């Protein structure tokens, strides 16, 4: 309507005017687009800068504190003599409990869900349950561990109690990643195996699991690196503040790297050097996690077969 009226008054002027308006509007829109692009990019970069700052700060604070004596020394009250050998052994002990428990239960659950009960009420229920379990805060698992393993089975705050608690915590991760790995095994492999007269269990054992193994291992490593970094459930289990002894069996009290970081951070008010010890322990923890994740990525890239 508008255009028509203007056209009546002055055809030429209107044309120029319309082009001008459009150009202005388009320039404006493109400008907005470019500003937004830069703004979005900078919020992305902000997160990475924070990550960089975090690593830089911890690196600076730990300089001069990480040496052989720190890695192999026992815990001590004086910062210069303190070492994290006990925490390293405790962490290793914890992994030794978590790996077999989560692998057996997690992979079996995944096999059940993917091979035996692909549909139906039971598997649906287990799947919903797993996804809810994955989002339960880790402190709650600590409370479960405290009353179930700590008090009911009378394991106290031993490596076994801690390991079992963390196993339950990371179980959903292992199940989901194993499920993905098993799902990715193509159907024709199973059919070929069945066609040769193999029963279901033989097919799973000889065909499905070997093909799915890289995926399962990747998931297991990720789950274990989650368990290594976990602090809250273990603190709730009631691990004593100062453990001078190195644990000798699975029934001994223990400390892990994150717990050591926690207590040293709490005590920085009393002894400022503890901050350096905490930073040095963080470096050890982060390097361990980084190596484990690298191994996981390596396994995934090297052994995952495409069909």
């Amino acid at each position, binding site marked *: 309507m508008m255009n028509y009226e203007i056209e009546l008054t002055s055809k030429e002027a209107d044309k120029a005017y319309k082009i001008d308006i459009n150009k202005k509007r388009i320039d404006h829109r493109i400008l907005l687009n470019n500003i937004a692009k830069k703004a979005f990019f900078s919020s992305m970069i902000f997160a990475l800068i924070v990550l960089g700052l975090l690593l830089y700060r911890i690196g600076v604070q730990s300089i001069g504190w990480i040496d052989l004596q720190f890695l192999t020394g026992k815990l001590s009250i004086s910062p210069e003599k303190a070492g994290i050998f006990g925490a390293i052994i405790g962490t290793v002990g914890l992994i030794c409990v978590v790996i077999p428990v989560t692998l057996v*239960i997690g992979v079996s*659950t995944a096999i059940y869900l993917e091979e035996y009960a692909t549909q139906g009420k039971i598997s649906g229920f287990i799947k919903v349950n797993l996804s809810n379990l994955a989002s*339960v805060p880790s402190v709650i698992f600590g409370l479960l561990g405290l009353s179930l393993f700590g008090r009911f089975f009378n394991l106290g705050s031993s490596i076994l109690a801690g390991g079992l608690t963390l196993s339950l915590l990371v179980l959903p991760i292992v199940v989901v990643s194993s499920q993905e790995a098993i799902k990715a095994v193509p159907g024709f492999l199973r059919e070929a195996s069945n066609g040769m007269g193999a029963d279901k269990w033989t097919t799973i054992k000889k065909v499905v699991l070997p093909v799915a193994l890289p995926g399962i291992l990747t998931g297991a490593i990720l789950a274990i690196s989650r368990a290594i970094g976990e602090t809250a459930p273990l603190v709730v289990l009631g691990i004593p503040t100062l453990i001078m002894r190195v644990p000798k069996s699975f029934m001994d009290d223990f400390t892990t790297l994150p717990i050591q970081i926690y207590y040293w951070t709490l005590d920085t008010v009393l002894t400022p050097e503890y901050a350096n010890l905490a930073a040095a322990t963080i470096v050890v923890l982060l390097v361990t996690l980084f190596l484990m994740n690298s191994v996981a990525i390596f396994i995934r890239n090297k052994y995952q077969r495409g069909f």
Partner: protein
Amino acid sequence: MEQKTNVRAIIKNNFAKKKRTTDKAMPIFFLVCASVSVITTIGIVLTLFTDAYKFFQKVPFSDFFSTNLAPLSPEPHFGILPLINGTLLTSLIAMAVAVPLGLTAAMYLSEFASDKVRRVLKPMMELLAGVPTIVYGFFAYSFVTPLLMKIIPTLEAKNALSPGIVMGIMILPLVTSLSEDAMKSVPEAMREGAYGLGSTKLEVTLKVVIPAAISGIMASFVLAISRAIGETMIVTIASGSSKNFTFDITQSMQTMTGYIVEFTSGDAGSGTTGYYSLYAVGLMLFLFTLVLNLIAQYISKKFREEY
């Protein structure tokens, strides 16, 4: 005819020889393993409810839902409102950081970044998610708090602001990756339609992609709040253990998770009211996160647009 029966007999014979028992027994074993996750959930609910029940036999509801929290005084009070207040305030600060940064970062990754840039930036973002929370706690306490003190001189050494901000950084990768997944699943044809009408990238993102992906984006926000509420170590280290009911974020305040950690690592003898109060607080925490997760599932199911 003879040959046929022969073949049949051979097959029958073979089947009998095969270990049919293992094939029949394995599913049962897998089902038992699969039920571990269900038993874990039942265990969590059972321990929380029974011990919280014992708590409420000793402490009336009116005392529990009050602002008076003094568990270690000679006349103990167990009001949970200061804890809920601390939890919600720190989580809100975290969301104030994570939502704008996460959403814009997701828009950048999904809509603006080239494939090359995305392949570099995304794994770096995921590194942030892999850092153990205890490390973030150390970072908040030893770096962010002193930094904020320069801007806000009245800030206490332990406060709600610094762990809130750091927690926002922690949940940022969650918001980013879930929102990006939601945006990526919007079909390309819809974008192309908008481009064909002359839209800029920003207009396509804001007017086409985000409305289409809104259910996934909202779900990612809710999951992020749930994660922030359940987060333990950052708030335990950097927010302190003041049990005052206050809205002043420059002061120390305790969260539900922080209370659980402080009280178990302290002297909560089994059977005392203080010990049972852990489970009452744990139950509240569990219900909070459960409800949020159910909301997230509801949102992504109910408002999902199918294309």
